[in-house]
């Protein structure tokens, strides 16, 4: 993938977050809390759990459908980061050699179960986190964090990150383009040229940071980021938060898949 494509990819998720759907209109605090609850619930399952995790796919699926987020976009992103999760679990089948019966006398090593469980948890958590970003504009997430009393320093860092990642990427894109245009397929892609580009980028970033800091000072910055916007909680936000919490509670503490399974078994026998 070229740098340009990468750049527009990040831009795309940003554009998505400015859509106007039911999910996008929810209070960012409600979404943030729901996402965090979801993450903790999923992580809290034991390392061999598989069946009980499956119902949790309902949540990201619903967000995706109602929030009109293209499935393939999220799917590709999850695949892109999946190597991290794979490498965490890849040796489990070898190390964890206990035998587990999964189906009428078919046994596998417990390691395979835990690898699979890791992959499920990974897919659930990463896709939900991505969906939070894709359905909530970044400035709103920062506001939500600030209102939830996250230290202002962290929130400022995050909002600067969001503000300048595009500027920085554009700058990189210009340098990379300039290099490609004059390297004529030759040694332009060489390692030591790359190192120099990174160096130049660093110097320019430091200079820019200085100018930004001055711009802040000249408008009276004295070490604290002020903020204005306050949200008003709507009924729909409360409904959303409560139903997510209820959903998580039920599927965490009642073996829902098992109950459904037994029920179906009962019907057919």
């Amino acid at each position: 993938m070229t740098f340009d494509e990468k750049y527009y990819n990040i831009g795309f998720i940003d554009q998505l977050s400015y859509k106007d759907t039911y999910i996008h209109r929810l209070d960012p605090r409600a979404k943030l809390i729901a996402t965090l609850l979801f993450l903790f619930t999923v992580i809290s399952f034991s390392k061999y759990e598989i069946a009980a995790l499956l119902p949790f796919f309902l949540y990201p699926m619903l967000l995706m459908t109602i929030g009109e987020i293209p499935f393939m976009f999220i799917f590709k992103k999850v695949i892109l980061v999946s190597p991290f999760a794979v490498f965490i679990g890849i040796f489990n089948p070898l190390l964890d050699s206990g035998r587990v019966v999964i189906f009428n006398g078919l046994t596998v090593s417990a390691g395979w179960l835990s690898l699979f469980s890791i992959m499920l948890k990974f897919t659930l958590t990463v896709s939900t986190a991505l969906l939070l970003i894709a359905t909530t504009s970044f400035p709103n997430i920062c506001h939500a964090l600030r209102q939830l009393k996250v230290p202002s320093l962290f929130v400022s860092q995050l909002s600067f990150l969001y503000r300048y990642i595009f500027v920085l990427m554009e700058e990189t894109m210009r340098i990379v383009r300039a290099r490609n245009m004059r390297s004529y397929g030759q040694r332009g892609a060489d390692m030591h040229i790359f190192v120099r580009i990174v160096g130049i980028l660093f110097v320019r970033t430091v200079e820019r940071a200085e100018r930004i800091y001055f711009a802040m000072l000249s408008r009276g910055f004295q070490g604290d980021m002020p903020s204005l916007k306050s949200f008003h909680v709507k009924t729909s936000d409360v409904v959303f938060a409560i139903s997510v919490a209820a959903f998580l509670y039920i599927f965490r503490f009642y073996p829902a898949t098992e109950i459904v399974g037994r029920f179906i078994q009962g019907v057919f026998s």
Partner: protein
Amino acid sequence: MSHHIVEFKNVSFRYPDGTKALSDISFRITHGESVGIIGANGAGKSTLLLHMNGYLMPTSGTVNIGDIYLTRQTRQEIRRKVGIVFQNPDDQLFMPTVYEDVAFGPLNLGMDEAAVRERVEAALNLVSGLELKNKPPHHLSSGQKSAVAIASVMAVEPDILAMDEPAANLDPRSRRRLIDLLKTFEHSKIIASHDLDLIMDVCHRCLVIKEGTVVADGPVSAILTNKKLLEENNLELPLSLQRC
């Protein structure tokens, strides 16, 4: 009124790496004047602007803004009086949305929320950018960015407006709009630019800077028609004068 003055007296400045940027520069700008600062690349225009609200401190000499002498103690006060608009709006717009960015200054002045909202809307209206208020700056065009950058400075209601190349990167219509906008401001204005036509339209007085000092100071009509002086400073006659 005479208190919105900007006075530089024998100011010299040397960057930490030894580059001499200002040498013994002196001038006085009085209330309500609009002054263009022109000169070749590297003549010291930007350094000069950075002294006006105390980002850089003179190595020697004094800077007097509205009867307050620039020292480390008075810097904050002076920053309220002088609003600086940077050349690159991306440096100036650092908050995640336009609205928050314009509100940044007034909030730092400790104003209450209702007053801040009023200021922000007034400032955005001034540059006809109210409909941009919820956008993040990276979704704006260059023209919109520089309009918002001006609004973010105007929201603090400074007495003196200093601008560094305000029309760089603007398309002709946005540039024209900027010129019309600048003409409506009654502040003291100090504009550093290579865009001599802009200076001719907006300013009454012109300073020519060379190697960190003033080499000419006079009404725009005299300086911008002086072909010899301009050419000595890597400049040319304004395009509008070249035609006739």
